[in-house]
């Protein structure tokens, strides 16, 4: 199951599955590096963890005594299981943290996710490290500010260190509302150019939404774990999109004789920038934040018929 997971992720990243031995070695080395860094930086937390671990160990011992002795083999498997979890990084650029908040709204799956399924190896406030580690997947939230040297550098490093880069939320994907920045704000008056991350680096996958909903994040994570490429394909197809606006509906749907006035775009719009006039979406530029939700949700831009039937059991 673990090999399957790893290979699925590799397949997802477009990488060939490597022989396990050499990979484990590299992984162990990397893990050691990360561990020593974490240790160096979080001594107090480490001590608290030690205390907790000791308590847990005590508990485990009691259980082991009362039941059968756990075989050596199974405990080795446990360790392997942990070592095989995909390594995920969360990188915060310019945005409101709405997507990160959406992620944490998946309370019911979050603990299982973080305990059994993925390793968060890097992330603002989550895992503070001086050095960015290698990652299987980097979730990048927020647009990148061209005048902010640190952000630009960090983004470049993300591309280098991560197998897969995902534009997480509309700010990363299209720039969204940060596109309207004009600078002139304390303490960085010259920060005025906030662009989609795909303007600077190759992006593999995009999850639009302002914010991306908790449900879509959960669905993506589950698809990723299961290697469900069919589900993820639309998000891979959207990776190169870096310009979204309500007027896309006019250009790509209404003006292409595709619109049926179903109203899904209006439902999707988070800022009420769309209304139906004569059965067609009418776009209020002053309200539009360029999140791309309307065009993404329109059933006439792309239509996942097979996925829907699968979801409905039809």
């Amino acid at each position: 199951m673990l090999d399957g997971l790893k290979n699925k992720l590799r397949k997802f990243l477009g990488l060939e599955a490597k022989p396990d031995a050499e990979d484990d070695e590299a992984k162990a080395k990397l893990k050691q590096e990360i561990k020593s860094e974490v240790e160096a930086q979080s001594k107090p937390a480490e001590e608290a963890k030690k205390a907790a671990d000791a308590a847990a160990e005590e508990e485990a011992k009691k259980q082991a005594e009362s039941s059968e002795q756990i075989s050596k083999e199974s405990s080795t498997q446990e360790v392997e299981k942990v070592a095989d979890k995909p390594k995920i990084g969360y990188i915060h650029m310019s945005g409101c943290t709405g997507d990160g908040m959406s992620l944490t709204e998946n309370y019911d799956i979050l603990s299982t996710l973080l305990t059994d399924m993925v390793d968060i190896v890097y992330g603002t406030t989550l895992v503070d490290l001086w050095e960015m580690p290698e990652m299987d997947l980097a979730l990048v939230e927020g647009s990148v500010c061209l005048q902010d040297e640190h952000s630009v550098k960090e983004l470049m490093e993300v591309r280098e260190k991560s197998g897969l880069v995902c534009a997480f939320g509309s700010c990363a994907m299209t720039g969204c509302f940060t596109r309207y920045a004009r600078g002139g704000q304390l303490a960085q008056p010259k920060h005025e150019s906030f662009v989609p991350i795909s303007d600077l680096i190759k992006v593999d996958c995009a999850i639009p939404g302002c914010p991306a909903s908790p449900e879509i994040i959960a669905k993506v994570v589950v698809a990723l774990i299961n290697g469900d490429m069919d589900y993820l394909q639309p998000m891979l197809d959207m990776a190169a999109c870096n310009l979204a606006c309500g007027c896309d509906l006019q250009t790509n749907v209404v003006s292409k004789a595709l619109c049926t006035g179903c109203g899904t775009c209006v439902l999707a719009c988070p800022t009420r920038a769309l209304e139906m006039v004569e059965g067609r979406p009418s776009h209020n530029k002053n309200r539009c934040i360029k999140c791309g939700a309307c065009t993404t949700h329109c059933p006439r831009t792309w239509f996942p018929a097979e996925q829907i039937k699968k979801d409905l059991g039809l």
Partner: protein
Amino acid sequence: MAFGTYKEVVSARATDKAIQKVAQDGGIVSALLCYALEENIIEGAIVAGDTEDAWKPEPTIAMTPEEIIAAAGTKYTFSPNAIRLKEAVRQYGLEKIGTVGTPCQIMGLRKMQSYPFATRFVADKLALIIGIFCMENFPRDSLKTFVEGKMNSSLENVNKMDIGKGKFWITDPEKESGLALKETHGYEQAGCNICLDYVAELADVSTGSVGSPDGWSTVFTRTDNGADIFTAAVEAGVIETKPMDDVKPGLELLEKLANGKKDKGRKEIERRVNMGLPSPF
């Protein structure tokens, strides 16, 4: 597969006389929504309500059976019910919502449920989606144009519109008159011409007049949820049914129309793609 996946198809009608009186055909949409509301399967429904302007429906959040029944009857123009879904969830606080829509409207809702990018905690609130058979739809001004220009009436005077037996029918206080459908084709919205779905293949339950006698509707149950609600409504005596084999004109006609829409749609898609235009299907 002319009809998509379904569990059962029957001919049915509402038993409530009040619904029969105002219904387009068998009153299935009204009866099912009312039943679901009374049984607390849904807490409200988004339906195509009437407005001050004749034949200019607007999405309406109905909270009572009376409001649902007030919206009965087919309107052959747009009521994009989806546009009030967020409001129903967030302002009205509804946790279980029913709605009715054309096949394309249901495609939008189902896509939103499978890929809920920008609709935080909305997708799971849709408890019942009823689909209506649909060959094409008209902008309201199209209706106005041919009702006035070709049928010598006015929208204000029309009490009922219907499509059947190859004609578009209007009933006004003086008479019932029909216009050959080929006279209306030029007024359809173009987006309909690439649609391959006649019988709302992605709804929980879909219904329409074709296949059943006057005053009855043909009903497909599709999802588990849709089948459960429909079966419960039949058991409660809200809806009565007949086997399709016992009614005329029966499934054969429906199959002909459903396949006809698919064939025409595929041809139109091919034509457009050859011109370099995009197609989602």
